[in-house]
């Protein structure tokens, strides 16, 4: 059963269309990563899933229930923010248990949840401190702890690692990767970091201008990008593009690539009929047939 299903969601701010008919469906336990350049609508989509921004049209289903017009609290989700958004006046313990307290979980259960999460993230010794007394990495852990304590249906991570230094980011990435199978819950994760996307995801959605260009496994997105944008966006260093001309060559086809030398380079087209025209292998978005 789909843990999260987004159906033709549109979001407009005045005349500006930020999300244009976005549809995604992910299964329970899947790790979905939304990537795309700044302003592509990935954070807006995240907020729409969280219920922080009402959508203009379309439907969002969590665990089979239509939550499009439910409040954030009713959706049973937890979110880790880029800025951590820890409650400054509360200790780490209260930060973690606040959500449970709001849901009227008995005190003993709350304490148990805090201990469990603190053990999991190795922050037991920090429980009595205030967020201001913690380093960036520790705050990040607490923010994750706050999300984990509630055991929601879906976790939302909004660029959770982008405020950490390079070393810590790699460590936390590993930790999230290890955590995911242990928790077994559905995660939607926004990032603009290629490596994070490629290493963490079960499923990557590449977004641009409010559209989802491609939705597929990291391997698919990396090796069989649907168009030149996805091809150039994924991977670091990014893919090289070479202008070529497609020609008939005996029974099959060949690519003619101009070189500085007298003789052009002629490469045989490997298999099947070509989809693209001269000047690159751009194809229609949504076409998942393998490209050469």
């Amino acid at each position, binding site marked *: 059963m789909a843990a999260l299903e987004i159906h033709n969601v549109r979001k407009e701010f005045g005349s500006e269309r930020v999300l244009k008919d976005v549809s995604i469906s992910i299964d329970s336990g899947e790790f979905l990563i939304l990537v795309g350049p700044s302003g592509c609508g990935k954070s807006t989509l995240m907020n729409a899933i*969280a219920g922080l921004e009402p959508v203009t049209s379309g439907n969002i289903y969590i665990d089979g229930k239509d939550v499009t017009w439910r409040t*954030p609290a009713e959706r049973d989700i*937890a979110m880790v*923010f880029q*800025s951590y*958004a820890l409650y*400054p006046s509360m200790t780490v313990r209260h930060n973690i248990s*606040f959500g449970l307290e709001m849901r009227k979980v008995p005190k003993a259960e709350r304490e148990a949840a805090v201990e469990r999460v603190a053990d999991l993230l190795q922050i037991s010794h920090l429980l009595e401190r205030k967020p201001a007394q913690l380093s960036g990495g520790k705050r990040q852990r607490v923010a994750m702890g*706050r999300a984990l304590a*509630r055991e929601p249906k879906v976790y939302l991570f909004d660029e959770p690692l982008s405020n950490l230094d390079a070393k810590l980011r790699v460590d936390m990435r590993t930790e999230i990767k290890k955590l995911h199978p242990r928790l077994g819950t559905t995660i939607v994760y926004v990032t603009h970091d290629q490596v994070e996307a490629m290493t963490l995801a079960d499923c990557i959605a590449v977004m641009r201008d409010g559209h989802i260009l491609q939705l597929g496994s990291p391997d698919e997105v990396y090796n069989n990008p649907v168009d030149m944008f996805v091809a150039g966006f994924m991977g670091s260093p990014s893919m090289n593009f070479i202008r070529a001309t497609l020609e008939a060559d005996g029974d099959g086809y060949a690519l003619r690539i101009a070189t500085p030398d007298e003789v052009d380079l002629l490469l045989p087209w490997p298999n099947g009929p070509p989809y693209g025209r001269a000047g690159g292998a751009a194809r229609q978005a949504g076409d998942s047939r393998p490209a050469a």
Partner: protein
Amino acid sequence: MRCEGVGGYFWNSFAIVIPAVLISTAVGALNGYALTKWRFKGSELVFALMLFGCFIPFQVVLLPMAQTLGWLGLSSSRAGLILVHVVFGIAFTTLFFRNFYVGIPNELVSAAKLDGAGFFRIFWRILLPVSAPIIVVSVIWQFTQIWNDFLFGVAFSAHDTQPVTVALNNLVNTSTGVREYNADMAAAMIAALPTLVVYVLAGKYFVRGLTAGSVKG
């Protein structure tokens, strides 16, 4: 004619100032919170209109206010004076709190919403605990304004509900031939004392609060 000095009026002032300060600060805090963290269509316009309140000279509203207090049956009462001060104070306190809460990240409120807290719960548990600097500013400002007010006091109070500023004026203007400068001065000192005390006790927070958010870090 009684001769009980300014003592009674001094307590009158407290009875007016303390509720007025508390109410206007509380309402200002809620306004500022709603205008920044629960924006609605036209919230900027509402804020702009409230700002007008900061620029309206007191004299302009004397007559309409007297009329309103009459309708409400609050003429010449302490409650009436409190109401007038609260209404005027809200413009300033809303401005203070709005500008303070604008600097508090919205993610904090989003996180609390996801955690299941509602409008008042978020205000009470998340925002109010970090609002100490701006509460101090609001309280000092309102206390000074309302304590030192003369115009509303003289216009909307009866003999037994006069604030100390009005009593001081009456005392100084009442002469029996000889000016009692010592008594005048003493009364003036007494009338000025509470604001002085408030500044001494909370002054350092005042400056801290006024400059809060102006510098990053």
